[in-house]
């Protein structure tokens, strides 16, 4: 998109945009002590003084600050760097009855290498009460079509937190299109009617067996398939059959069936395809999540 700078142009810091304040407001934590004295008068120049003119962040706070420096909040979310391997934050916000202190995470973070370069690059999977800040309504919506439980760790005693009521929000049927190689007519399958890949495979077989047979009748092969109504389509899931079942997810990627739990599949599947196994690349899971690198895949 036009109009905005790219990352490689460098990162103009706010401090560069502030003419005089820049020197005064350098912010490294270690300089807190030394800048304390000079910053006081500078901050008065910036008219930050409280109405009664009593600007007092006394020395007693400095030791407090030092305590806090080693307890940077993000330390809560580094279960990977925590030697115990558990998540202190979960302990804090889990069953509060169990913990003797209100927030053990604040005192128990072993990772005192507080430099931000050790910050995690991944999203923290640990659920936090009330985060992200969305109303219960939306949480139910977000979890509606998948069966992930709402991770409400707070058990307010005697209160009816409405988000704990299971609210029936998912649609009654989940129809997805399914096309088969060599069959011009697409079909639809209702994923809500099945609860496993095996059943889905069976349903696919039922949908297309007749069509496939009807088509092969026009070929020169002969009419021997007439009576039995067509050859069963098997081996869809394991690559052993003539055809293999794949699906497109909501990001447009094509994936092999069967890698993820059923409910996750249901929440992300957008359409299904039955491909000739011979046309699949050898099942190299080159990229993560086992995506197929089908460069010629039509959209």
């Amino acid at each position, binding site marked *: 998109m036009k109009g905005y700078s790219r990352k490689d142009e460098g990162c103009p810091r706010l401090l560069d945009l502030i003419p005089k304040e820049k020197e005064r407001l350098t912010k490294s934590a270690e300089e807190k002590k030394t800048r304390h004295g000079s910053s006081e008068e500078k901050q008065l120049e910036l008219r930050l003084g409280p109405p009664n003119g009593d600007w*007092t962040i006394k020395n007693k706070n400095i030791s407090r600050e030092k305590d806090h420096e080693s307890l940077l909040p993000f330390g809560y979310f580094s279960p990977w760097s925590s030697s115990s391997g558990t998540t202190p934050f979960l302990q804090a916000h889990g069953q509060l009855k169990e913990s003797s202190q209100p927030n053990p995470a604040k005192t128990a973070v072993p990772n005192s290498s507080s430099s931000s370069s050790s910050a995690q690059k991944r999203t923290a999977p640990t659920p936090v009460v009330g985060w992200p800040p969305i109303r219960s309504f939306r949480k139910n919506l977000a979890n509606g079509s998948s069966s992930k439980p709402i991770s409400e760790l707070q058990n307010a005693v005697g209160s009816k937190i409405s988000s704990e009521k299971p609210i029936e929000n998912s649609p009654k049927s989940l129809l997805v299109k399914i096309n088969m190689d060599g069959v011009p007519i697409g079909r639809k399958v209702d994923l809500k009617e099945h609860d496993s890949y095996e059943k889905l495979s069976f349903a696919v077989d039922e949908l297309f067996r007749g069509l496939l047979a009807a088509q092969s009748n026009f070929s020169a092969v002969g009419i021997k398939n007439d009576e039995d109504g067509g050859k069963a389509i098997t081996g869809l899931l394991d690559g052993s059959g003539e055809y293999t079942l794949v699906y497109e997810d909501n990001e447009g990627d094509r994936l092999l069936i069967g890698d993820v739990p059923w409910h996750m599949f249901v929440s992300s599947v957008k359409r299904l395809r039955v491909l000739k196994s011979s046309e699949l690349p050898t099942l190299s899971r080159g990229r993560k999540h086992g995506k197929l690198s089908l460069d010629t895949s039509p959209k």
Partner: protein
Amino acid sequence: MRSFQSMLNYFPEEVLEHVFDFLTSHRDRNAVSLVCKSWYTVERFSREKVFIGNCYAISPERLISRFPRVRSLTLKGKPHFADFNLVPHDWGGYVQPWIESMAKGGVNLEELRLKRMLVSDESLELLANFFPNFKSLVLVSCEGFTTDGLAAIASNCRFLRELDLQEIEVEDRRGQWLSCFPDSCTSLVSLNFACLKGEVNLASLERLVARCRNLRSLRVNHAVPIDALQRILMQAPQLVDLGTGSFGQDPDSDSYNKLETAMQQCTSITSLSGFLEVVTARCLPAVYPICRHLTSLNLSYAAGIYSDELVKLIRHCNKLERLLVLDTIGDKGLGVVASTCKELQELRVFPSDIHGGNAAVTEEGLVAISAGCPKLNSILYFCQQMTNAALIMVAKNCPNFIRFRLATLNPTIPDAVTMQPLDEGFGAIVKSCKGLKRLSVSGLLTDQLFLYIGIYAEQLEMLSIAFAGDSDKGMFYVLNGCKKLKKLEIRDSPFGDVALLEDMGKYETMRSLWMSSCEVTLGACKTLAQKMPRLNVEIINDSDQMEASDDDKQRVEKMYLYRTLVGPRKDAPDFVWTL
């Protein structure tokens, strides 16, 4: 000068009143009442709309005695973080005493707007039966009532014009409340029950719509299928605001064509929402004809519409001023919004997967929007990651933000590129947006950001902080610097007693302060409560964490304080201690 002065003294009150009629904002009226005693008196008898931002700051009796002619009342109850399950359900905020007092006091109530309040069926029945001119009920994020209460409103409010339920959990008693609107009811202008989970009688709904010729706004719930929607639209082509309900099935081509025809008739619709259960996108093209008139579009409940369909829809909407979507739209989709919706003022992007698995928007989408939409002034953005560079660019592109709320799915994530705190980015926002009134920050943040906020955010009225800051200084910078601060809510941040007690008088200039999972101790709260009698300092002890011991050093898990003219409230439950 003297003659002018005496002329003013003899200004007839009727003239003053007439002039004051032009003042609609409660802030203007509050200012006017401070000028002199006679203006105070004229103003108080002429005020019809009263806004009370915290229902415990004043009592119903005092409201009625000061504003006897009140016709419209807006009340807010629980603290904002109650929306995120941080406040127990029965903390308080009951509307019952207000309705009782107004009924007894002979108030001619016509309009009641409630947010985060507890509303019982009994309250609704009182409302319906004691105020013969009652016209408008708007409930946002309230709870405590059932469809029986709605039935009472429908049955008894003869001149009901507006019934608007937003984000409400209503217990469904299967009583067909909608059928309770009598045949004589033709006055409805606005009906919104999109959030209700239960069934409604479709035939009743269709008849109701047919006889309410002034209906402008209709938002139906998931129980209204497409064919019913189509019939309703044929009866109400004058609609301006439509909530489509489920929009869910895959209709046969006959139903689809009928829907298309119905939509084409509705040339006045400028606001669209709903799509609560869209499973296939096949029906979406039916709304394309009205897209070009839309100024407001809410697709934030449409979990079933995927990015490419969303984008196709939005490409038709070049007059949009307000857009609410899920993050399934993706950065690319936001790019399309940026190039299509040049009139965009408000954007909200909600998370579709709160566990952040497939979260699809990053800082790129935000920057694209800021570059493409120069009128943008309000944003709520849930994203996977953010960078300072992006925020600085956004600040440069859009200096007109009034509301800026950013929530990273991982609340303490640093700049995704530099791994630095996001202080500089948010700092750029507050420095550039001189009119900023509301700010929510997230990500890895130090005291530095709060210094920036204190220095630059001169118009800031509401600030939300979570998992941020290093020390008491952070909170101090904010309290000291933001002169117009009204609401401050903080969770999981290392601010403690020193910051809390530094400037106690500040809290009387604010509506409220919320602090949870911070470093504040019981002793400090007690000190504050003792020194400031016009504040209610409440501790919420919902997990039986704290014994009522004298250990003043124990940390307080949840504290909520607010200014009040009527002392400690009498309806506090056991787990709420007012110090």
